[in-house]
């Protein structure tokens, strides 16, 4: 009998870092307990995992660390429910359970040889960070063309991964554009909503793929801008979020049409989503 898919892998919390000014989002770093545990957890950017806080419950979160960063897993979690609140109050050194890797991942094979446009909004930047680090790894970088990243949030305090963003903006092989909704003092970057910034940047759609992650309203207004730049439905890739419990396509709750977001997704192309009813 195969490994029990409901049993989480024990991991230790080594870093509980407050990511945003309003303290609503923390980034957690979990360390594998043994080499063989790590081998049993091969994952790719875009996948998610169920974090189990013993005594509270389980919840699905996108994996923020990239497979190119061995030894640990990173998750950025907003304080919303029972599990996330328990995580936020957790001291370093506590044991948790992680179940996964779950779901499919960004089509890195199909992205090879293409320009990549990454558009992230609010705190849905976790799996995008994983993808960016995966692509920026020296032996992967050559596979991809120009990388443009548009990352927006309501105010500077809400932008995640500050130090990494500084590093990316210094690099020449990635074009990072950070924007905030309304001007804030001490902010020198762009100001404006993501759809308007996307219009300004107007990435060329020729031989390129766009990956969009963020709140539904942002996706709703950014998509026409991309279509205006010539992006066809199968050139736009999205990651959906739904209420999940089992994460392995059995408990029947995360379906959109006949697809289970946890097993057939969470990454879908706009073309696939167009066949499904818009019930998400």
């Amino acid at each position, binding site marked *: 009998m195969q490994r029990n898919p409901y049993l989480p892998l024990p991991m230790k919390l080594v870093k509980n870092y407050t990511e945003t000014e309003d303290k609503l989002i923390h980034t957690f770093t979990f360390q594998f307990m043994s080499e063989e545990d790590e081998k049993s957890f091969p994952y790719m950017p875009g996948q998610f995992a169920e974090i189990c806080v013993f005594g509270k*419950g389980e919840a699905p979160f996108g994996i923020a660390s990239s497979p190119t960063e061995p030894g640990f897993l990173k998750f950025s979690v907003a304080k919303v*429910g*029972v599990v996330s*609140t328990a995580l936020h109050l957790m001291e370093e050194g506590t044991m948790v359970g992680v179940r996964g890797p779950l779901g499919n991942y960004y089509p890195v094979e199909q992205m090879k040889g293409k320009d990549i446009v990454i558009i992230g909004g609010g705190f849905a930047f976790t799996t995008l960070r994983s993808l960016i680090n995966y692509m920026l790894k020296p032996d992967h970088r050559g596979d991809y063309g120009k990388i443009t990243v548009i990352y927006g949030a309501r105010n500077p305090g809400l932008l995640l991964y500050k130090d990494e963003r500084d590093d990316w903006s210094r690099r020449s092989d990635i074009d990072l554009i950070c924007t905030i909704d309304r001007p804030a003092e001490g902010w020198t970057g762009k100001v404006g909503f993501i759809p308007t910034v996307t219009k300004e940047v107007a990435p060329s759609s020729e031989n390129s793929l766009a990956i969009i992650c963020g709140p539904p309203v942002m996706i709703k207004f950014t998509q026409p801008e991309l279509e205006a730049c010539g992006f066809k439905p199968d050139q736009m890739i999205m990651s959906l979020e739904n209420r999940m419990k089992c994460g392995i396509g059995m408990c029947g709750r995360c379906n959109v049409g006949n697809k289970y977001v946890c097993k057939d997704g969470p990454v879908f192309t706009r073309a696939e989503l167009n066949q499904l009813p818009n019930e998400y």
Partner: protein
Amino acid sequence: MRMQKLASAIQDAAKKLLEEKKVDLVVGFSRGSLPLRSTPCFIRKPEDAAKLTWDCSCENNLANYLRRRQDRVAVVAKGCDARSIVALINENQIDRNNLYIIGVPCSGMVDRVKVDAALEGKDLIDVEEKGDTLVLKAKGVTMEVKTGDLMHDTCKVCRYGNPVVYDMMIGDPVPAKPEDNFADVAAFEDLSPAERRAALAAEFSKCIRCYACRNACPMCYCTECFVDCSAPVWVNKSTGTDDNIMFQAGRVFHSAGRCADCGACDRACPMGINLRGMTRKMVKEVKELFGYETGVNLDDKPALAEFKADDPQPFLVKE
């Protein structure tokens, strides 16, 4: 055939209301898909009014469909529905002038569980009403039973067969029934705590937590029910008998002074659990303590929403 006359009177009333555009929708009963079953139906066009019917199996409480409606609705309401409507109006869940009540005096509805018991599990194929008896036909069995024996326990003690509020009354009033002495509740109270615990455990071990009792109850309309709450977990979601009892106890506490004892919970429970054993205890307490009966007149405030100086407090610890 009293019921047939009522049915056609209801159809005409509904047809007239819809034709005169007085209401956009009539909520009533139509023939069910099984013998001796009728099912709630929503009539919007005058010509559909012919679907409406009335017989001794219109047991659902239609007040459930009237909460928070913006459109003008007419409802075919029997005694218990009318009481629930009054209770909901007192709690501002129904706008009285958007509601047209077609009152129908009711002498009692038939309990499917009792019909199953009479037929010992055979499936009912056909039923025929003869005066005050019912001829039940199943495969190889035909029996005639007095309707009174098959009636819901609620209806046996119901003193408000005639709707307490109506815009139009159909059919003549039914004779009032004697005062309800809550004999069943008193009997249960006389048992020792251990016997009570054992009896409740046996009854609620059958509960499958489908929440039909909660969803069928017109007074249960919280946006997030305490059972669904995860912070804190008031009641576990698994079907442990103690959790089932605590769920029902919690529900009963929330219906204090609001429950009109219409029996919709008992009728909806697929496992045939005697839920009214608990709810009626609360109804008895509220009646004894505050002399208050739910949904009896429109200008009453809910029992727990007001207090009087002379309210009794027998439960306080006397030092």
